[in-house]
Structures are given as C-alpha cells and as structure tokens.
C-alpha cells in the first residue's frame, strides 16, 4: 500500500490505461443516457397514446425525420383510413405552408415556412407556453416559437394579442393574431423555437392527387395518431404500420429511398438507444484494448514491486505470513490500483461526458448509474487479473534466499 504512495508518478502512469478505457466508455454512455433521457422527458409531455407516422429519407435511417417534399405523401384519404381503425381515437395532421416573410409593426423579415397543425392543444401542450395559449381551428391565429417571437419583437417577445403579417410568396399579406408564445425548448424539440404554428384550417391548402381515388386531396408531411387506450398503443401501431406500408396512398407516393416510419415515442427512444449502443460497442472495443494495456501495466508494476520487496516478503514469511497472506497483500494492492484507475476514469468520463452533453445538446446530464457500478467492477477485475501473476510470484519467493539478499 505504502509503496503506491512512494511511487505516485509510477502508479499514476500505470493506471492510465484503465483510466482511459473506463473514462472513454463512460463519456459516451453519459452522452447517450443524457440524450435519451432528454428525449424521454420531452415525450412525457406528449401523450403516451401517440403513434407518429412520418416519412424518412432511407439513406439516413437514424437521422431526424425529413419532412421535406419527399415526405409530402400522407393524403387525407390515408388520414381518414387511420381514423377509422379500431382503437384509434383521432388522427392529427401537420404540414408546411411556404411563406416569404413575417411582418410585425414596421418590420418585415424573411421566413420560409409555417407549421400548420390541427388540434394545437394536443401538440403544443399547455405547459410549453411561455405566455398565452393555443389558437382555435378556423381562426386567423398563430403561436410563435420562442426564438421567432423574440426576433420579431426585436429582443423582447411579441406580446399576446398583437398582430403579425404573413407574407406569401406571391406577395399577398395575411394578418394573424398571436395567441401564444412557446417556452424555450430543449434537445430534440429545439426546432420548435424557430417555428410559427398556424391552424390547418384555414391555412393549409397543399393538395395532391390520391392514387386510390384519383381526387385532388390534402396531403400532409406527418400524421399523429391518438390511441384511445394507452395499453393498445403497440397493437395499433402494428395495424397502422401494416396499412401504411401496403394499402396507403403514402406507400404509392413514395419516391426514391424515402420510407414510411410508424413509431411510438418508445420506438424513437429505442432507436436512439440502439444508435448509442452501437457507438458504445465501438468505444467499448477500444476500451477493452486500453484496459488490456492497463492490466499489463499494472501487472508489470506489480512484478517490479514484488522484485523490489523480495527481502520484505522473505521477512514476512519468516515472521508468520502464510502464502495466502502474501498473495492477498499483492492482490489487494493490484485491485486498489485498478479501483483507483476506475474511479479516476469515472471522474474523467463523467466530467467529459457532461461537458459534451452541455455543449452538444444543451440538456441536463443524466448519470448512467448502472455503468458506474460496472466501471468499478471492471476496475477491480482488471486489477485482480493483473495482480494474479505477481501475487503468485511473491508466494513462490524462497524466504531463505530473500533474507540473504542485501
């Protein structure tokens, strides 16, 4: 034990492998856990009865949904078909309304597209409002994201009840009343900050020819299905999935590598977990190498320590130490080194992970508790493994020869 302290630098260098191995894994795991937790906590605000139907560019299976023009495939026919399914309470649609700019007072600034949603109360849950509340379907009203509201207001958010102008690409101006401003959003919902929400009625007019009825009908970029009973969510999701993939207008409007995604909030978090699990596996492989190097380092330093203390070991045997006393002495020391390495690694990994979380996602840090326990275990295990051979060698020392050494 004491020799650990008398050779501080040596011990520190030795445990570097363990520190790096455990630190890198923990950093990634912290990142993953925090991201996942931030997503999950956002979904808590959503109705857990939701099933999301959207289009995704198939080339980026784990990327964010792409509601661009490739995704404008969910027709009013599809929406009604889903609404008629058993277990489904209601189907909410959303789409983009292209505009050229936004006007407030004398000021007019360029703006690309509005988000048209129906039943705003469901999507824009009440607690997400910084001020005001939802708009009414059919009214000339809007809800502003935090950033938009602030930018329009020139530093302070636009007041509730004030009027803003929507400049259409053809030059026409439409005036709406602001009924609410959203609170600053975090993580995956951050994009809401830059949105201007308007009711589908009367703002959304994008039409497409339905492959099934040959009529011009409204077409949306995403649908949100509300299931009546939360316990049915998975079942309903499977039914929706089957319908969407085989019989829907959307399946016939698909182009290129775009694919239809039918997901519950749980599916989304599962996907994020899977993505992070992949990264973790990759980093884990590197960590294993690092731990191996660390173990060899510890073993080496312990062998040196055994050699240096040959005489001391001889003395201990002469004054009554059994082999197992000698063995556990060195095993204990090695385990301690491993433990120290893992603790330092945990500190470094958590610190680094937390910094990355702050920097990348701007969400709160979630501690991966299970991984902390695993890390401590790995440190102890690596130490024990590395200490085995040196400890064995220590027990094999002949006390007579050891005592004869000067």
């Amino acid at each position, binding site marked *: 034990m*004491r020799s650990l302290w008398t050779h501080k630098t040596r011990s520190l260098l030795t445990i570097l492998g363990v520190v790096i191995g455990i630190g890198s894994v923990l950093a990634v795991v912290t990142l993953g856990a925090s991201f996942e937790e931030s997503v999950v906590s956002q979904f808590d605000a959503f109705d857990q009865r939701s099933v999301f139907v959207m289009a995704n560019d198939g080339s980026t299976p784990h990327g964010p949904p792409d509601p661009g023009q490739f995704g404008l495939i969910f027709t009013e026919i599809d929406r009604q078909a889903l609404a008629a399914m058993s277990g489904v309470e209601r189907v909410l649609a959303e789409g983009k309304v292209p505009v050229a700019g936004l006007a407030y007072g004398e000021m007019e600034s360029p703006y690309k597209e509005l988000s048209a949603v129906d039943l705003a109360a469901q999507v824009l849950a009440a607690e997400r409002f910084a001020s005001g509340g939802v708009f009414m379907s059919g009214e000339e009203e809007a809800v502003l994201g935090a950033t938009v509201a602030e930018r329009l207001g020139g530093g302070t958010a636009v007041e509730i009840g004030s009027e803003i102008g929507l400049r259409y690409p053809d030059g026409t101006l439409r005036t709406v009343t602001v009924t609410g401003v959203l609170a600053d959003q975090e993580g995956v919902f951050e994009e809401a900050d830059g949105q201007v929400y308007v009711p589908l009625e009367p703002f959304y007019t994008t039409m497409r020819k339905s492959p099934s009825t040959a009529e011009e009908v409204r077409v949306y970029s995403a649908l949100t299905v509300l299931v009546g009973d939360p316990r049915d969510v998975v079942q309903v999701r499977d039914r929706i999935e089957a319908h969407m993939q085989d019989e829907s207008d959307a399946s016939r409007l698909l182009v290129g590598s775009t694919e239809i995604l039918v997901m519950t909030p749980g599916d989304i978090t599962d996907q994020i977990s899977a993505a992070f699990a992949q990264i973790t596996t990759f980093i884990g492989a590197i960590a294993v190498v690092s731990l191996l190097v660390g173990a060899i380092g510890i073993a080496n330093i312990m062998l040196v320590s055994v050699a240096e203390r040959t005489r001391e070991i001889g003395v201990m045997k002469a004054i*009554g130490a059994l*082999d197992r006393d000698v063995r556990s002495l060195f095993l204990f020391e090695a385990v301690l080194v491993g433990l120290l390495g893992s603790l330092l690694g945990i500190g470094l990994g958590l610190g680094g992970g937390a910094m990355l979380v702050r920097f990348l996602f701007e969400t709160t840090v979630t501690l991966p508790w299970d991984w902390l326990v695993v890390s401590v275990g790995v440190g102890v295990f690596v130490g024990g493994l590395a200490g085995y051979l040196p400890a064995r060698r220590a027990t094999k020392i002949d006390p007579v020869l050891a005592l004869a050494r000067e």
Partner: protein
Amino acid sequence: MLAVQTRRLGKTFRTGDLDVPVLHEVDLAVPRGAFVSLMGPSGSGKSTLLHLVGLLDTPTVGGVRLMGRDTRRLDADGRARARRDLVGFVFQSFHLVPSASALENVMLPMAFAGVSRHKRKKRAEALLEEVGLTDRVKHKPNELSGGQKQRVAIARALALDPPIILADEPTGNLDSKTSREVMTLFSRLHGEGRTIVQVTHDEEMARYGDRIIDIRDGRIVQERDRTGLVRRVRPTAEATDGPTTALGQVADVRLKREGVRP
C-alpha cells in the same frame, strides 16, 4: 519434552550441476526452556540449521520436531502455520519492514495470525515497553539505532508468544555494550521459560546460553556447558581433534577451551 529435535538432519544445496552438502546427520536436541548457543566457523552450516529448525527451509534428509510435533508431513501452509505459532525469528541485520513504524513492525505477525487490530496494538505496545522502547513506538527503523532495531525485532519475534526463539547472530551488527543488553534481554526471556537457540561467533555472548553446541563442516562436534565442560562429543571424519568416542556416546571430558574454539 524437547522443544527442538532433529533426526539425522541433512541438507544439500544444488548449485547448477554441483551438489554442495552443508549439513550431515545432525541430531540436535534442545529441551524446553533451554538457551542454546550454536558456534562454529563461517560456512559451517549454522544458519542453514537454524532455517531448517525454523521451517524456513526443508531438509534434504531427516526431519524436525518442534514442541513434540513432527513437521515432516506438513505442506507449505502447515509449515508456515507451525512457524508462525511456534517460532520467533531474530536476525543479524534485523530485517524490519523499513516503511513501517516500530509499533507496526511488532503488530505485523499478529495481523497474519488474524488478531484484531485493537489487540494487536495493545500487545505491541506492551512488548515494546518490555524491551524498553516505549518512547520509540512511532519511529521508523531508519530512525533507530542498531540496538533499538534489534529490540524491536525481538519484540516482533515475541508478538505471537512463540515457545521457541531462533536468533541468527543477533549481536553480529552490534557493539559489545549493546550486545550485552540484547543478551540480557534474552536471558530474561529464557528466565521466563522460553526456549532460545542463537547462533553467535562471540564466545562471551555464547556463554549467556546454558549450552554451547559447536558445529564444524555441517556436523555437531561437541556440546559444552558454560564453564567449558564438554558434555557430549561427536567425532567426525573431518573434525576429530577432540577426544574420540563412539558416535552419539556421552562423554564428560574436560577440554582445554582453546581446543574447541572455532
């Protein structure tokens, strides 16, 4: 009962292809409570004999009985246990653990024997007091004089209250005044009923024992008492300058002291 008894003890070291016979058919018998000094020229095998008796080493032939217990069939652990419980070692170069304080050094054997920390500390303190080092408890070995170090080593040897103390040239590194102090300490332990076997080159120190055994070329050549009275002579092919008697036969012959000196 004999504290130490060896039967035809032999030890041959093997260095490379060469066999180096060091001890030959040593029959050593140390009664309980005896204080025996082993003397002999350098290389005659005294340390080797002491190591065999203390179960630090294994004989090539023959066996050792400690406190009546045959140790021949013991495995490494059994020998370590017997050593721990029956023998206390004292060395010429003290062999204290340098990083540990005097107190911790004395506590160490008790840790191996599973004595509780509290008891270890109390006993170690009492032992250090017994050897007159109450004020050096916290000192590290390099902060102690040779005599003090040896007294710590003796306290450590006594830690588990072993019946037998084996000391290999305990005064070899000490001046004559300190040597006498250590021997006085040994005499006291002897007086308390402990069995002591010491190796020494110093006739004066040897005579603190109640018996002196002379060893030459790996054989016991004679035993004498403090006054020089020869109690037992073992003639050998190599060392037969003393009176010749049959092997193992007891002969009370007064010898000139010079004649048996190494």
